[in-house]
């Protein structure tokens, strides 16, 4: 019965986290809609993941397995070789739809490429539950629920924790200071929301303390930051946003290095695993990151997990990082699909992002989400 215990633990963890541990959302538990849910039939759901390449997706599949066992349903997880194999994934989706499933789970590699497939689902009455990545302009009647990290909130959690560490440095700064942000792209909705969530929260916190802020660098993020109130030349704080030409650690690292080597750079945020590892790669030569801002350390904050980022958080190179819960996303995706296949109304299930640092990495509420 260890699995049941784990699940119970997981669910209570989410609830506890929702109330106590740096709440990412403070609404009532959206998982309550699944109380007492049983499957009317032994459904089988095709679950489209973005790939199997990272342990992130392996954790999501594990969550699906847990839910499937509880509900007595089955699923078939499928995904292309890499997250950029958009056409492969679309083919897989079309094949799955052709078989007429009772429901479809979808984490779209590219949100605009799946619109046609979603229209087919709507026409055929196949309920779709999107997980990890929502499809903002999905055709009416196709997507019944989204199970996603609230990325804007998750980004703001990173900003809040970073700001607590650099507050005094910002207050005592003599000239302009720079806060860096590395986003692996400016096209994926989750990265856009996360990057934007960080920027908006940081601006809000800085302005509350009487500082003027400008956002510079990548055009998308500069245009999205409507609350910035100064120009790059005369702002107290500049949030410098960089996006590499390709989503490789190498290019993220080069961008991070260009920002980190500025003398007045005081903090940097890498908004996903690749970007955060790029920041760490840049730091391997520069050695400016640390957890004591007053002593001149540049404060680094990461996102997601993986052994490299976990080690950096553990040894204080990173102040901390925000992790999503792929396990719970997979878990609730199966629950939402089962409810939808039963014919019930389902609403979105936003899952939490948690702040973790060297002090709470081993906590029961955090550790299960820290995949390698």
């Amino acid at each position, binding site marked *: 019965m260890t699995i049941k215990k784990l699940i119970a633990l997981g669910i209570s963890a989410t609830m506890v986290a929702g109330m106590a541990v740096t709440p990412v959302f403070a609404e009532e538990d959206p998982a309550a809609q699944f109380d007492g849910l049983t499957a009317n039939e032994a459904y089988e759901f095709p679950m489209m993941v973005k790939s199997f390449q990272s342990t992130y997706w392996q954790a999501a599949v594990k969550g699906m397995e847990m839910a499937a066992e509880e509900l007595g349903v089955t699923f078939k997880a499928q995904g292309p070789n890499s997250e*950029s194999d958009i056409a492969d994934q679309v083919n897989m989706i079309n094949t799955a739809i052709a078989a007429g499933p009772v429901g479809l789970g979808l984490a779209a590699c590219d949100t605009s490429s799946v619109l046609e497939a979603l229209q087919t689902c709507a026409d055929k009455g196949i309920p779709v539950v999107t997980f990890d990545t929502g499809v903002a302009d999905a055709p009416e009647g196709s997507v019944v629920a989204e199970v996603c990290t609230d990325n804007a909130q998750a980004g703001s959690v990173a900003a809040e924790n970073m700001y607590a560490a650099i507050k005094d440095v910002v207050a005592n700064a003599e000239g302009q200071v720079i806060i860096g942000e590395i986003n692996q792209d400016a096209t994926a909705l989750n990265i856009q929301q996360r990057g934007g969530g960080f920027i908006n929260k940081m601006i809000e916190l800085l302005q509350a303390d009487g500082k003027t802020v400008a956002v510079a660098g990548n055009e998308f993020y500069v245009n999205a930051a409507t609350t910035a109130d100064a120009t790059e030349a005369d702002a107290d704080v500049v949030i410098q946003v960089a996006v590499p030409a390709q989503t490789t650690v190498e290019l993220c690292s080069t961008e991070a290095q260009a920002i980190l080597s500025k003398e007045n750079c005081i903090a940097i945020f890498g908004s996903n695993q690749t970007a955060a*590892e790029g920041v760490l790669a840049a730091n391997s030569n520069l050695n400016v990151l640390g957890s004591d801002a007053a002593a001149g350390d540049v404060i680094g904050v990461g996102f997601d997990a993986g*052994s490299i980022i976990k080690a950096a958080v553990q040894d204080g190179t990173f102040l901390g990082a925000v992790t999503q819960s792929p396990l719970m996303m997979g878990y609730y995706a199966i629950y939402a699909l089962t409810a939808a296949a039963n014919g019930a109304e389902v609403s979105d299930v936003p899952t939490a992002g948690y702040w973790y640092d060297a002090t709470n990495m081993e906590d029961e509420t955090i550790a299960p989400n820290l995949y390698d």
Partner: protein
Amino acid sequence: MTKKRKSVLSDQRFIVLLVVIALTAIFSVMSKEFRQYNTLLSLLDFSYYDLLMAIGVTFPLITAGVDLSIGTGMVCYALIGGSLIRNYGCPVIIAMLVCVLLGVVIGTLNGVLIGVMNLPPFLATLCSCMITRGIGSLFSATPWPGLTQEGGWFHSIYKLTIGSGRSADRYPIGFLWMVLLVLLMEFVLNHTKFGRYTIAIGSNKEAAALSGINVKFYHVMVYVVCGLFVGLAATAYAAVTPTVQPGTGAGLEMDAIGGVFVGGVAASGGYGSVLGTFVGIYVIMLLKTGLPYIGLQANWQQIITGIVLIVAVLIDILKEKKGAH
């Protein structure tokens, strides 16, 4: 078969070297952050795998062939090596040898498909590109040991770190090995049977066969040598990439192949030099590293790199035309 060059000034390698110097000067003037030792260190760190791939692919390119599998191959070998270390407790040295061996195996496969079975190089290596990419994505993301972890000694091959943390001194000794390898392969290209036959195959394969050269054998060897260097590149890649991600690597070959063309390998085959490749790669690396320092956004970086490539190939074609008259 090497063409006689009139003077050092008309040698593309010299022109490219001037470009390297000019780019360094421009970036240094425009950004004071660029003028730091750490910037040079990082540039060199990330240049080794590009350069090793480029040295390897210089040989197929001289035969008017190509090897598209170098990027995905390199990542695939690094993943397999990493998972041997992480999941099977394999010593790092064995993992490195496995990388090189896998490179040679895929190189041989490419060579046999192209040299013996006469598949077009583009097609044959496109297939091995897909195969290595697919095999690579069977593995999960694997970090090789970090510098301070057990087995982290292999980082010292490329960068010697004395001391730890902020007081550490770092020396890019990998650059020395690269210079030695470049000189060795330049010698191999110009002064050994293998090198001369490589050029002969690129100039005129039929004539080479008629003159009694075992064209099949040497054509296979060209790809084996390329594979060997890709295997070496995998170890350099593992040393600088925190977590090697499965399914990646496509596109990395373009930096290497681009660098070789900037360095003056004839686009139609039959001429090239490893020294040219060496300077060509550093043009690509300088653009990749320097442009973010002067605040240019990613899309502009790609546009500028593309333009530089066009100019380099145009210079080559114009010179060839001039030579023909």
